[in-house]
């Protein structure tokens, strides 16, 4: 059985190995091929060079900071608005139509407008991330709170909890799984939006700017490295969040 599972694992590694081998082979087929298929050695050299100059660290740091601060702002705002929409039908009727129609515009499509409003700088980029985090948290918070069971609310009423207490003691814990789901969507979406914003507002450091810079100067190695890093960081943040979330929510306690 163990041998069998090792064999299965090995099969999964076959395709990446073939692809890498093919890549390396293609990189040696003349200069025009090497333009696209950067050899692994060159890639390693570029990585070391960017690491040594501190440039890579700056890009990663900037992008992460932007994403996390935008995520915090957008999610806090989203949870507040989502709670309001779930608790007050008047607020729901007033905010809902605006929220749902604004949500129809693809986020990247808003970028030219945000650019005209907030300039090309950091505030515009942050705004894109905030919006990206805001949308999914509103939806999941309001649905999560609406689905908090009536009997739990009734217990809150019996205990004559105040509004704030009801929120922190009953509604928030009840809706937490749904809110965390929304937050994990928000995390993935903010990272994407951060990249989009940095790509399209092409100024200042950031992984998206590094991508764009590599593209305009035709440096494939830089582009590839940035793509790999972006994917790795997305993967890492997602994994970290899921672990934290699992520790936080130990299933519904009935």
């Amino acid at each position, binding site marked *: 059985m163990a041998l069998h599972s090792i064999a299965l694992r090995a*099969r999964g590694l076959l395709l990446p190995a073939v692809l890498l081998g093919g890549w390396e082979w293609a990189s040696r087929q003349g200069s025009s091929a090497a333009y696209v298929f950067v050899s692994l050695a060159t890639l390693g050299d570029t990585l070391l060079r960017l690491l040594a100059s501190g440039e890579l660290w700056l890009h990663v740091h900037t992008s992460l900071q932007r994403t996390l601060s935008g995520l915090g702002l957008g999610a806090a705002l989203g949870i507040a608005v989502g709670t309001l929409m779930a608790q007050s039908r008047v607020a729901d009727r007033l905010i809902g139509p605006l929220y749902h129609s604004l949500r129809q515009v693809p986020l990247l499509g808003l970028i030219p407008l945000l650019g005209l409003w907030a300039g090309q700088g950091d505030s515009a980029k942050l705004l894109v991330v905030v919006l990206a985090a805001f949308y999914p948290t509103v939806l999941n918070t309001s649905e999560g709170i609406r689905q908090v069971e009536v009997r739990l609310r009734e217990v809150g009423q019996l205990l004559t909890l105040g509004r704030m207490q009801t929120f922190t003691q009953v509604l928030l814990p009840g809706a937490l799984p749904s809110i965390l789901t929304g937050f994990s969507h928000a995390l993935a979406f903010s990272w994407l939006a951060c990249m989009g914003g940095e790509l399209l507002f092409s100024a200042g450091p950031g992984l998206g700017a590094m991508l764009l810079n590599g593209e305009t100067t035709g440096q494939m190695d830089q582009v590839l490295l940035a793509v790999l890093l972006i994917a790795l960081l997305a993967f890492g943040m997602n994994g970290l969040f899921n672990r934290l979330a699992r520790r936080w929510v130990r299933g519904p306690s009935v």
Partner: protein
Amino acid sequence: MAAAPTTPVRSRLVERWLATRWSAWVSPALLLALWSLATWLEWMPEQILVSPLQVLRAAQELAQSGELWDHLGVSLYRLAAGFGLGSIAGLVFGVLLGLSQSLRSYLEPSFHVLRQLPTVALIPLFILVFGIGETFKIFIVLKATFFVVGLAVHDAVRGLSLRYTEVAKIYCFTRWQVVRSIVLPSIAPAVLTGVRIALSRAWMVLVGAELLAAESGLGQMMELGRQMFRLDIVMVGVLLTGVIGFSLDRGFRLLERRLMRWKRS
């Protein structure tokens, strides 16, 4: 005590307002009014806010010169081509992967790693590989579609009950018969949902790609508008991308409901 009787009256009024059909239009109307007022009283410079009327006029101008239709047509064509190819490829791949254990052991890890690559970040890479022509845009839409559809199909096939395949065995179905008359109909609901999500994802990615590198298309129209500080043109573009995103999504939901009618009965 004196304030007590007003609460029921107020809440009854609120109830009545909530029950009316037009209550959902109140906030958009208010926003439109505020917007008009702000431009009328010139609260903000024209680079920041143009009047709704001016946006309408810009849309009319763009429509009359035919420019708008050209951009729209090109964008929709790219979307259709990339999305069509991507969903067919995703469907085929997902069914194969879901049905074959050995194929899964070869391809699944790579599939899961590759699908994590954020499409937006791949735009510059695709530009370097394919140039800034049509190929790049269709491929980026294809990529955005393929992985979402492929995953939805794969999950749906894996979720199929074993009972179905046992029935197929009793009837001595061939493989193709199994796929056509058992697998495809039973995964249809989940797949349609996946395809709908892929469509909105694809639309966003296409707009992003057009913003970054294009000589035509709605995204390019907006980007040009931004560079010329024509807020009205940008607004037309934003509204139009929203309307298209909304109609595509709504159209797909209708299709889903039509195709899934048998399920309700």
